[in-house]
C-alpha cells in the first residue's frame, strides 16, 4: 500500500534508517520506562486524596476508643468544664475551647478583613507598578514568618505593649492572639483578594472610567460586586488559617480555659489545648483519645470552611 516517496530533484533521498515515516522504533526499555513513569505520575496525582483520607483515618483511629467509650456528647459540646487530668472529677467539656477559638478568630477577622481587603484593593487598583511589586514582596515575607516567631512576638512585644496601652495587668489575652492572627491571615487575604480583583476583565474598568466614574466609584460599584465571590473566598481562607493556627495562640492567649467576657481575658483554643496536653497524656488514655477527637473536630471545621470557599470560587468561575 505504501508507495515510497519519490525523490525530489536536488535533495538527497533520506536514508532508510531515517526514512521510514514510522521512524526507528524507540527501544522497548524507553517505552516501558515511560509507561511506568506515567503510572507513578498518576499515583502521585491521587496521593493528595489518599493523604486527606489518611489524616482523617489515622486521627480518628487514635481517638475512636473515646468516641465509643467515655464520650458524652452533651457534656463534650455544652460544658465549659475541661478537667481531663482531675482524679476525682474528670470532665471533657470543650465549649470553652470552642468559644476561645472563635473569640480569637472573630476578633482577628474584625481587624484583618477590612485591612486585608483594603490592602488588596490598594495593591490591585490604586498602586503604581513599582509600589505593587514592593508591597507584594513585603506581604509575601509577612506570610513567611513562622508561627512560633509570631508567638514569641506575642510574648515579648505585644504583651508589654498591651499592658502599657490598655492598662491591664496581663497582656497575654484574646486581643494579643487576635492581633497576631490578623497579621498572619492578612497575606493570604491580600493575595487571594488581589487575584479575585484581577480576574475582573479590564473592559469593566474601562467602561466605568469612560463614563466619568472615579477609581473608587469603579471599585465600589463595579469591581466589588463582580469580584465578591472571590473576596468572600479570600476571607474564608483567612478564617480557616486562623482557626487552625497553633503555636502563636498557644503562646500569646494566656492559656486559661475560660469563656472570655472582654478582649482582655485570657482564653485557650482547641489547637493550643492539643499542643499543650498531648505531650503529657499517656498513649491510649481517655485524655489522649479526647485530644484526637478535638483534632477531628478541628479537621471537620477547617474542611467545611475550605469546601465552602472552594464552592464559592467555583461559583465565580461559572458566573
Amino acid at each position, binding site marked *: 500500500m505504501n508507495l515510497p516517496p519519490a525523490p525530489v530533484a536536488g535533495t538527497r533521498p533520506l536514508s532508510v534508517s*531515517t526514512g521510514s*515515516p514510522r*521512524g526507528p522504533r524507540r527501544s522497548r526499555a524507553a517505552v516501558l520506562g515511560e509507561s511506568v513513569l506515567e503510572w507513578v505520575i498518576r499515583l502521585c496525582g491521587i496521593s493528595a486524596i489518599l493523604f486527606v483520607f489518611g489524616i482523617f483515618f489515622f486521627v480518628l483511629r487514635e481517638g475512636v476508643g473515646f468516641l465509643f467509650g467515655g464520650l458524652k456528647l452533651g457534656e463534650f459540646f455544652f460544658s465549659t468544664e475541661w478537667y481531663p487530668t482531675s482524679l476525682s472529677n474528670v470532665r471533657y467539656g470543650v465549649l470553652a475551647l470552642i468559644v476561645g477559638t472563635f473569640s480569637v478568630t472573630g476578633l482577628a477577622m474584625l481587624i484583618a478583613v477590612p485591612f486585608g481587603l483594603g490592602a488588596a484593593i490598594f495593591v490591585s487598583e490604586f498602586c503604581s507598578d513599582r509600589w505593587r511589586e514592593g508591597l507584594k514582596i513585603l506581604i509575601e515575607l509577612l506570610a513567611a514568618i513562622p508561627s512560633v516567631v509570631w508567638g514569641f512576638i506575642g510574648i515579648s512585644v505585644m504583651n508589654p505593649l498591651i499592658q502599657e496601652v490598655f492598662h491591664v495587668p496581663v497582656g497575654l489575652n484574646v486581643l494579643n492572639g487576635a492581633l497576631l492572627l490578623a497579621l498572619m491571615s492578612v497575606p493570604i487575604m491580600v493575595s487571594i483578594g488581589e487575584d479575585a480583583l484581577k480576574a475582573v476583565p479590564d473592559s469593566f474598568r474601562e467602561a466605568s472610567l469612560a463614563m466619568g466614574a472615579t477609581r473608587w466609584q469603579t471599585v465600589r460599584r463595579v469591581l466589588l460586586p463582580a469580584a465578591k465571590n472571590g473576596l468572600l473566598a479570600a476571607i474564608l481562607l483567612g478564617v480557616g488559617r486562623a482557626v487552625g493556627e497553633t503555636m502563636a495562640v498557644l503562646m500569646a492567649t494566656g492559656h486559661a480555659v475560660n469563656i472570655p467576657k472582654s478582649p482582655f481575658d485570657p482564653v485557650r483554643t482547641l489547637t493550643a489545648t492539643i499542643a499543650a496536653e498531648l505531650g503529657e497524656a499517656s498513649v491510649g488514655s481517655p485524655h489522649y483519645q479526647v485530644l484526637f477527637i478535638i483534632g477531628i473536630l478541628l479537621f471537620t471545621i477547617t474542611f467545611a470552611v475550605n469546601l465552602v470557599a472552594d464552592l464559592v470560587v467555583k461559583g465565580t468561575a461559572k458566573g
Partner: protein
Amino acid sequence: MLAPSVPPPPVRPRHPPKIQVRDLRLSYGGQEAIRGISFDVDRNDVFAIIGPAQSGKSSLLKCLNRTIELVPGAKQSGTITIDGLNVDELPSVYNLRRRVGMVAPLPVGLPLSIFDNVAFAPRAAGFKDKHELAALVEQCLRQAALWDEVKDRLHTLGTKLSGGQQQRLTIARALSHEPEILCLDEFSIAIDPVTTMRIEDVLKELKQRMTIVLVTNLVQQARRLASRTMFLWNGEIVEEGPTDVLFSDEPQSRKTYDYVNGIFG
C-alpha cells in the same frame, strides 16, 4: 475540462485515495462543529479547504492526526482512513502523527535552538545518530527554504526568529518526521506576502512527494495551488470538486460563487 452548464460528473481518481473521510461528525460539549462530511483526498495532490471562520476547517485537521483527542470535551464519530486503514484503529497514535505532518496557523518556535526544533521529532522517535540527525536537519531546513538564512546560527533560540522564519521553521519541523501527508492550517495568516509566496513554491515542490491538505483563508491561494478544493461552511460541505470548477463562473452552488468572489465571508 470545464462543463459550463452541466454539473461535472464526479471524477473518480485512478488510484485508491490517500485519505478517505466518511460521515465525520464532531462536537465540542454538545455544540456541533462538523456535521457529517465525506470526501476523498488523492495521493500526491494538493487538496484545499476553504471557508469562513468557525466553519470547522481546523477541527477537521485535528481529526486527521487525532490531536482532537487532546481537546477537552471533543466528541467525534465517523471514520477517517489513510491508505485504507482506519486511523482510530492504528496501534500507535504517535506513528499516525508522524505520518501526518501538521503546521498550525500561528508559527510556533519551540523554546529550543533552531537545530533542536527540527531534531525534536526524530529524537522523540528514538533517533540518536548525530551525523544522520545533522543531515536530516539540514535537509528539512533546505526544503523549507530556511537553510540559507539560519545555517550560521543553528544554535540560537528558534523563538527569536521573525514570524515568517518561524513559520518556515514550523514547516521544517513538520517535515522532519517524513510525513506522507502534510496539513497546513492557514499558514499565511501571520506572515508577509513575500514569505507566503516562497512557502507556496516550497509546497509545489513537496507535492511531488507527499499529499498536502491546505486549509486556507485566502481563496486565491487555493486556486494557485490546489487541484481539488472543498468549500466548508458551518460544518457542512457546500461543494467539493476540481478547483477550476469551484472558481469558475458557474460552480454547483451559488454560495460557492458568492464566497470565492468575496460577496460574503
